């Protein structure tokens, strides 16, 4: 009992951890953004943490006071909405940093994507209600000639990153994901070993194709920035990540300048 009292007293007076600088990012950046943040830290010594979730959820959190100075969304709808709710003293800004691409992954037992869509049992997409890649995936499937049959096969995950999890655990034989979740080989080599292994496993189990851009609406990746004196280095990171030197990174991550 005395031990419990001591622990409790220590807890009450324990120091809180220093608040790290934070950015919020759409789930499709979950694999590649930590690489970019590490490169930035290696160059400048500044450590920035990222919190990942679907763009819709993060947008709501920011509206309710979440302490994110920078938000990298997968849809300009959310960043424009945040800008409208911004007060002058917050000095908010938005901009676009790339167009996302949709990939379709299907199991090797199917010869083509068409065959996979027709013959699979489950198709994994992110939840279209709050995930932009889910919206794009649904739009692509709704244009398909097999639309009624496809509707019954759709399995929704909470966000874009969880679609990969569904594919690697066999919960779906087809998945529609953001290109950044299966980046180019040179960028994959910079990921942690465990992530590389999972991506290699997925590449062994199936194949990926880029969905033609005209089959889904543009996925406009945009950023939202609000000034925060407690996070003074975020603006510098934002400028750095959009600089010409980082263009190869974004290309390897599957982003394009135009939706085509």
């Amino acid at each position: 009992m005395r031990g419990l009292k001591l622990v409790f007293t220590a807890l009450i007076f324990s120091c809180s951890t220093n608040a790290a600088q934070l950015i919020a990012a759409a789930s499709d950046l979950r694999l590649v953004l930590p690489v970019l943040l590490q490169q930035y830290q290696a160059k400048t010594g500044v450590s920035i943490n990222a919190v990942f979730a679907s763009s819709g959820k993060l947008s709501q959190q920011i509206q309710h006071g979440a302490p994110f100075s920078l938000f990298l969304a997968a849809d300009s709808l959310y960043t424009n909405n945040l800008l409208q709710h911004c007060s002058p003293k917050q000095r908010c800004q938005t901009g676009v940093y790339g167009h996302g691409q949709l990939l379709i992954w299907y199991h090797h037992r199917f010869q083509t994507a068409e065959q996979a869509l027709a013959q699979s049992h489950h198709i994994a997409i992110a939840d279209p209600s709050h995930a932009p890649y889910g919206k794009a995936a649904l739009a692509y499937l709704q244009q398909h000639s097999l639309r009624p049959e496809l509707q019954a096969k759709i399995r929704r995950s909470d966000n874009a990153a969880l679609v990969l999890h569904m594919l690697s655990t066999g919960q779906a034989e087809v998945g529609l994901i953001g290109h950044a979740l299966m980046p180019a080989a040179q960028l994959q080599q910079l990921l942690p070993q465990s992530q590389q292994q999972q991506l290699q496993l997925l590449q062994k189990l199936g194949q990926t194709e880029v969905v033609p851009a005209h089959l889904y609406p543009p996925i406009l990746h945009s950023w939202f920035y609000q000034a925060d004196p407690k996070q003074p280095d975020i603006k510098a990171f934002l400028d750095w990540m959009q600089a010409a030197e980082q263009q190869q990174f974004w290309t390897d991550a599957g982003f394009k300048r135009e939706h085509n």
Partner: protein
Amino acid sequence: MLYPSEWQALWLTVKLALLSSFLLLLLTAPLAWWLSRGQSSGRNAINALLTLPLVLPPTVLGFYLVLLLSPDSWFSQLLRLMGIEALAFRFEGLVLASMLYSLPFVVQPLQQGFGQIAQDLLQQSQALGANRWQLVAQLIWPLSRPALFSAFILSFAHTLGEFGIVLMIGGNIPGQTQLLSMLIYDQVESLNYARAHLLSGLLLLFSFSVLFWLYQQQRGPQQRVQQQRNQQ
């Protein structure tokens, strides 16, 4: 074996479970006592209110708490007048959310434990000259220790496993509101299954060990209570 971010998440989880459980015991004991001392429509209504967190999905409580704790709400403006920052996306907000969510797990065992203390025992003690503080310290506290332990154990265990409501209120911010349950979810999303396994195993082992130790501590008081009842 554990990275700094994982130690932080473990520490925050334990801190949240201990703090919210202790605070709940302190704050709800008087209420549980009052509820145990009779029957009335008022008491039944309050019991129903206190039991709501058991039946409502965490998202309902989380939704209303997000509205209540967000910076523009009347509640946050009131806090600001007292010099306190808004609680949304802060550890203090998690404590409040956990306390509300674990409320029935504390009040009900306390209420049942207090209800087993016979009224005539209290009256006899008062007739023999015991004042209120003597009643509490020498009668109520020893007889209700098993119930207090049970309430603490249930609240602690319940808080260790929280996910939905703390994610909505806390925002999964590393070092501030990212609990172990959220970190495990993060690792799964990031395809880091080995780390997810390690952290899940750690949480399982830690939870079992703490609960086992707490139940062992409870054996002594329960035996003393039984002896006192036999002597009566």
